[in-house]
């Protein structure tokens, strides 16, 4: 029997006298206790449709529904009234919790509305809910504020609030998108468990095929406001009918973007034991708990793409700032073509660092909203002291570079808000390239983009590399993306580089326990594999240990020596690993044999 049946759901927005149809004739059903996935790229109307179902649409939206049947009752559909027995988990746990109210109180509010009871009963219920959402020691957690919790914990609190109304249907709108890979895996487990325990149906909305594959029984594929394809997970993933679905799937699977071996032996940038630590309000005075990066060493050769992977907050962006000269390392050495740059004065350092340009993550913020694309490009040229160009020459160069990144001459006079996210990122790349840099630093450059646009941008970067032999430091939290584009890769954990080496080798045969966990946590866009996948057990984010290996708290291979000191880097050929598993003592004599993975 169906829990929810929806027929011909339409949503229109009125803007400036124009009607925009965001959702067109959507019909679907959700069975009891079923996990149904909705997949589509951003802007296709997924969230709008879900908000319409929940009754969360604003006044400017105009929604109608041909048939709306929830809990077996033929109900009347109203887009402005919140449905009972239906709950929603939102994407961004950082903005959906009130930062000034303790989490226990926030959950209690939801409990009071839905089940009432006296203070004691409510408190007990909050405890139960938190426990159900996978939070240990709920009594202590209740008196904490949202900022004291990590992203994954916050998303669990949001889940607990959603569960307060005993929902029959949970709508999860991109519940894992804002989270790190490992936490994402834990969230998938949690949602699965909740669906099983509470017998609630889950309507999971995501753009990530991996997440959908590991959870859903049935899948709807959405494009431009309508479902273009539907079926069981197996049908959609193994035998998609529509070309759109096929393309999406192809982009989601790891397809290495072919790279010509253009790298030479000449080292362009070399970091050796670079350290930069910050102390924040909470860690002031405690030297060991400072955030930042520690003892980072790697080298980028000409024409090479070096990938850098790590969770959010592991110091990737700090490293990007050091490389681009915005920050000065506390210790260690940085060489640019054998010039030592970290000791130079700011003005002298600039001269070398002009050859390094950067592409940022947030496409909205990285372009000046009051400047047209052309103006932004010409500004970049104008500041170039090596070559003085006339206004006419600058314009020519700007048009040329726009064409190089796949835009047209008309785009010169468009403002950033007139571009789509992918186009904006192209403009950003053009702006970085117009100064003829030798090294391009891409800080999460494709993370905010849809999978298909991601692939386009990655192709563009590769194409540019083939033409100009530019080196690239590609920073991302997404192993998939880094695997597609880079030749060498470094894995970071809490400010340390734990493993470093050839991308293919690391992706297929990880040596460091953290790398292994990262690889395992990435949900596969393949339902059979993804469902079998075991995710790391629920663990709370650990503070960085005072001494010893940074990965100590999470590691399944911890030994006595790990607690005493941080492991040094062990080098085997081109591969470097910072783990005691690869120490001489651990190898016990047979040092002649080539080293293999110890895990």
């Amino acid at each position, binding site marked *: 029997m169906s829990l929810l049946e929806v027929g011909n759901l339409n949503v229109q927005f009125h803007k400036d*006298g124009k009607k925009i149809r965001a959702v067109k004739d959507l019909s679907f059903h959700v069975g009891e206790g079923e996990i149904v996935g909705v997949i589509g790229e951003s802007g296709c109307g997924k969230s709008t449709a879900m908000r319409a179902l929940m009754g969360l649409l604003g006044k400017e939206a105009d929604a109608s529904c041909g048939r709306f049947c929830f809990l077996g009752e033929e109900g009347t559909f109203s887009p402005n009234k919140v449905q009972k027995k239906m709950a929603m988990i939102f994407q961004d746990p950082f903005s959906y919790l009130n930062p000034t109210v303790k989490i226990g109180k926030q959950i209690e509010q939801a409990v009071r509305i839905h089940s009432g009871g006296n203070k004691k009963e409510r408190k007990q219920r909050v405890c139960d809910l938190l426990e159900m959402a996978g939070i240990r020691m709920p009594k202590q957690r209740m008196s904490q504020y949202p900022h004291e919790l990590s992203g994954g914990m916050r998303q669990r609190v949001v889940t607990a609030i959603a569960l307060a109304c005993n929902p029959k249907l949970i709508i999860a709108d991109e519940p894992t998108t804002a989270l790190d890979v490992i936490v994402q895996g834990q969230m998938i487990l949690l949602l699965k468990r909740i669906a099983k325990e509470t017998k609630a149906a889950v309507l999971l909305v995501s753009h990530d095929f991996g997440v959908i594959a590991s959870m859903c029984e049935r899948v709807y594929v959405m494009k431009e406001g309508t479902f273009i394809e539907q079926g069981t997970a197996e049908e959609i993933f193994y035998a998609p009918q529509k070309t759109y679905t096929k393309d999406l799937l192809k982009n989601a699977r790891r397809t290495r973007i072919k790279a010509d071996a253009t790298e030479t032996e000449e080292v362009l940038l070399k970091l050796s034991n670079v350290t930069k630590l910050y102390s924040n309000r909470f860690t002031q005075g405690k030297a060991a708990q400072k955030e930042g990066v520690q003892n980072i060493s790697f080298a980028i050769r000409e024409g090479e793409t070096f990938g850098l992977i790590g969770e959010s907050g592991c110091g990737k962006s700090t490293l990007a700032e050091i490389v681009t000269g915005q920050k000065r390392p506390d210790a260690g050495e940085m060489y640019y073509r054998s010039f030592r740059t970290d000791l130079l004065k700011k003005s002298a350092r600039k001269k070398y660092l002009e050859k390094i340009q*950067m592409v940022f993550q947030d496409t909205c913020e990285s372009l000046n*909203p*009051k400047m047209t694309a052309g103006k932004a490009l010409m500004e*970049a040229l104008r500041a170039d002291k090596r070559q003085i160009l006339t206004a006419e020459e600058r314009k020519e160069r700007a048009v040329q570079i726009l064409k190089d990144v796949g835009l047209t001459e008309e785009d010169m006079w468009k403002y950033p808000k007139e571009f789509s996210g992918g186009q904006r990122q192209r403009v950003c790349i053009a702006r*970085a390239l117009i100064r003829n840099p030798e090294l391009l630093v891409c800080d999460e450059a494709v993370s905010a983009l849809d999978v298909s646009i991601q692939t386009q941008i990655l192709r563009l970067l590769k194409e540019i590399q083939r033409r100009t032999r530019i080196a690239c430091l590609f920073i991302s939290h997404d192993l998939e993306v880094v695997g597609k584009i880079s030749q060498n890769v470094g894995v970071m954990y809490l400010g340390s580089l734990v493993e470093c080496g050839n991308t293919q080798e690391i992706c297929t045969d990880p040596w460091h326990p953290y790398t292994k966990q990262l690889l395992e946590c990435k949900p596969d866009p393949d339902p059979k594999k993804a469902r079998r996948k075991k995710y790391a057990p629920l663990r709370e984010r650990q503070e960085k240990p005072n001494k010893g290996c940074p990965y100590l708290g999470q590691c399944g291979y911890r030994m006595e020596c790990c607690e005493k000191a941080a492991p040094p880097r062990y080098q085997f050929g081109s591969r470097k690993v910072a783990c005691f598993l690869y120490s001489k003592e651990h190898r016990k004599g047979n040092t002649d044999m080539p080293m293999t993975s110890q895990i």
Partner: protein
Amino acid sequence: MKKKKNPCLLYGAALLLLWIAAALLVPELSPYTYTGINADIRNQGSSCLHLFGTDKFGRDIFVRVWYAARISLLVGVTGAGINAAFGLLYGSISGYVGGKADFLLMRIADILASIPSLLYVILITLVMGAGVESIIAGICVAGWVDMARIVRGEIIREKGKAYIRAAQMEGIRPLRILFVHLLPNVAGPILVNLTFLVPQAVFTEAFLSFLGVGIAPPSASLGVLIQEAKSQIQLYPYQMLYPMCILCLLILALRLFGRGLENVYGEKTER
């Protein structure tokens, strides 16, 4: 895009223009002058010859009110202009440079702003003598601090964004980043604040003149007129009523205009 109706801006601008036109034209076109004393027609009520009546020296109040309006406007616009320009420069430098310089600059501003502006005006009037210049100087000593704080806040909010970091990495000079890249993006709130600075300055001037530390007679501002009428308020209340109405009208017009601008800016930022 269809332009939305913005009554605040429309009526504010119309009222303001009308008011400015009157202030500029009335003293020029009228047969009377603001200093012309006529003992025969003292303290007369409104008539066809003297629209607002005459004061205790037989001067035409209509001309005097609009002449005073001119001075009030001059003080208001100049004062606000100087405040805005200095505040903009001070705030943007403080916000953009940041760190210790920012701390030092803002503390200096705090100290300046902590002393009541009345003291500055009295001091300056003592040294420079009463007049338009000393009033403007008095208004400007600490009047820019609010503007500087707003500009600083806006700049700090905006400079953390990636496009400014990109501009810095391109090697664009700091001053150019400040004026070409940053200021256009923070112009909205600053512009709105500017329209609120003008009525503030006008009102301060009127207040100071009313207290007797402003413009010296026979020259007059709206505050002076109100103060002169105070002694006769029981007998001839209209002598105070007219300048007060004109002052209210100006402040209303400027506020409406500012509010209208705020609406326009608010729409623009909504994407």
